[in-house]
């Protein structure tokens, strides 16, 4: 098994999976607030839960739990380590 890096939207990351935050296709002011909350580029993030009916995602970032709307999570890129052959 070989670890490869793959890039996807945060919303596409499976529950229980982790990755590193990348670029955000959000307005400058939105990018700024996300960064202020600790979601800066390169920060490790874990998707810990998903709410009902395509509701928000629960994340763990820098030791705190955040809930993020799926529409927002779709606009955030993450790099994750995908096990080859999965």
């Amino acid at each position, binding site marked *: 098994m070989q670890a490869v890096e793959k890039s996807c939207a945060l919303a596409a990351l499976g529950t229980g999976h982790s990755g590193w935050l990348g670029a955000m296709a959000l*307005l400058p002011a939105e990018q*700024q607030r996300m960064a202020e909350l600790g979601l800066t580029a390169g920060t490790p993030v874990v998707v810990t839960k998903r709410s*009902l009916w395509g509701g*928000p995602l629960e994340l763990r970032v820098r030791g705190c739990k955040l*809930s993020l709307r799926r529409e*927002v999570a779709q606009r955030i890129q993450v790099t994750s380590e995908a096990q080859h052959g999965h």
Partner: protein
Amino acid sequence: MVIEPHIPHVALAGNPNSGKSTLFNALTGLRQKVSNYPGVTVEKHGGAVHLPRTGEIHLIDLPGTYSLNPRSLDEQVAHDVLLGLRDDTPVPRAIVAVLDASNLERNLFFVTQLLSLGRPTVVVLNMMDVCEQTGQQIHVEQLAQRLGVAVVPMTASKNVGLDELRAAMDEMLQSPLPARDVVELPLAIAGPLAEVAALLREHDLAEAAAAPGEALRIICTATAFEQPRLAPWRELWQPVVERAREQLAVAGRNWPTLEAELRYRWVDSILSDVRTAPPHTATATDRVDRWLTHPVWGSAALTLVVLTMFWAIFRLAQAPMEWIKHFFGWLATWVAQVVPAGQMQSLLTDGVIAGVGGVLMFLPQIMLLFLFIAMIEDSGYTARIQFLLDRAMGKLGLHGKAFIPLFSSFACAVPGIMAARTIDNARDRLLTILVAPLMCCSARWPVYLLLAGTVIPSVTLLGFLPLQALVLGGLVLLGILAAIFSAWAFRKTILRGPSTTLAQELPPYRRPQIKTLLHIMWERSALFLQKAGTVILLMSVLMWVLTSYPRHDAARSGSPLEQSCAGQMGRVLEPVLKPLGFDWRISIAIVSSFAAREVFVSSMATIYGAQVTDPHNMADLQSRLAAEKDERGKPFFTPLRGISIMLFYVLAMQCVSTMVVVRREAGGWKWMAFQWVWMTGLAWLACFTVWQVGALLGWR
């Protein structure tokens, strides 16, 4: 800039959920004052603290803030106070920065921003007990050295470390040392940074020490010039700011996230030196959340919470409500004995006591609601409700956090509207406030019970569904549908645009402290009494005058109420209300219940000369209404007419307390007036349609 007052002002600042208010309460005890920042709906908490050497100081508890770059009204106020931009609040001489020790990384970000203000600062490392529980070790000395200011470890909820903090504050005020920003500003934009900083100083918009940090924030903030204090300088400064952003782009830096990246990089660089933490394991909060944010169990738990709330409001509040009613009844009797019969007696008993008593009767319900809401907010459950319901509420055009305000409004819209404060986004908050009074509140029930009991046949459908109960259920549902429709209509027109809520913290659960809960309940109830009480008193007197004057003239036809101003207003309004199926008598009852819906019942009783001893025994009035005949000799109160009246009460804004609170919470007369026009307009249209269509179908 504000002149520094005689007593030094110190600001208490920190992230939301950092235990700031607990610390504030522990430091000030009962010597605190709650008011509102003039012009905005943000509560201002201030209190006196005695320090051994400095003597008395004034501590300001600022709203919880994630960043000095404001995103909500709360954050704007915190920002403005810290920078000395509010005329109503003296510029703080020093800052107490509160950190949640168990959430060091994100809290440190804001603390470094606070240091950049260049004010003498003490850092409080709060919630040390939580750190110990999770096996985290914080090296206080190291942290103090890195931050360059005193750091006091403490557990405010257990009063641990208070003396040490007082000593550190004393020291800070006795020999003040300005804090210094820990982050080095990027050389790539040294030129523009210095230019903006110089402009800030030149125009007295920032103190010398704070100017560089402010300049960096302006460059990183796309909306900087939308701030009122900077707007006038847009044309002059924009070129410099644009140049800085271009230079950053050339250097491969993303300008909106630059400040946060610089600060978090600094935090990352010191973290391993100041904290020893075991790898992340499931915390107590995680274990609780396994249930409470679970799609199935979480929804079940929320249902249980809501049902408990309602049981308490309608069961526990019943007895105190009776006591209040009896008290006012006794008071009226006593006044009637002491004050000689006449207009003065009537004003006091029928006007003031009956009016104020009628509204105060709901106080136990309101207080219990405040208590429950405080419990939900303080424990950290609000964010979980939002997590569970965000999608479903979003489909209805509402914010996930609108759930508790709207649900509370089923008992009373007043606490519901006040609870909308937890919604940080101004537009979603306003939307919630605008639709909350459409929920079926307690005061509507007497009206529904009177009319449904009169006009709806007491039969069961399919052998088990009582028709009257079905109609009542339909009215409640109709209120909900009207709220959803209104929310949709407002979103499409006056409150357009996407919801700006990005990320929401799910804070660790905290056991709410009884003392704090009672304190919040008392504070909010007092605020309601103070604000609504005076208006209710005035309205009660006004309504009494309208229903008692001009005085009864035996020579003219009609009862005293008919001859009164209110009676005449009923007559004047009759042409407007007739198309809805309301005659002048119903119009009078509607006019007289403008201040509070339940007054409809007592007005109808007066008009029809019936005795109503309590809301559960309206048989006398109901039989009189049922006996009323129209010009054709058929029953006047047909199902259609009754439904039209009930429909009016579902939709129309007939509550002065709510209007007073809306004016306060939505920030002005404009929204209050708009809401009145919208709701009452909606009521008129709905009743008109029902009555006219029903008439066409021959149901009149």
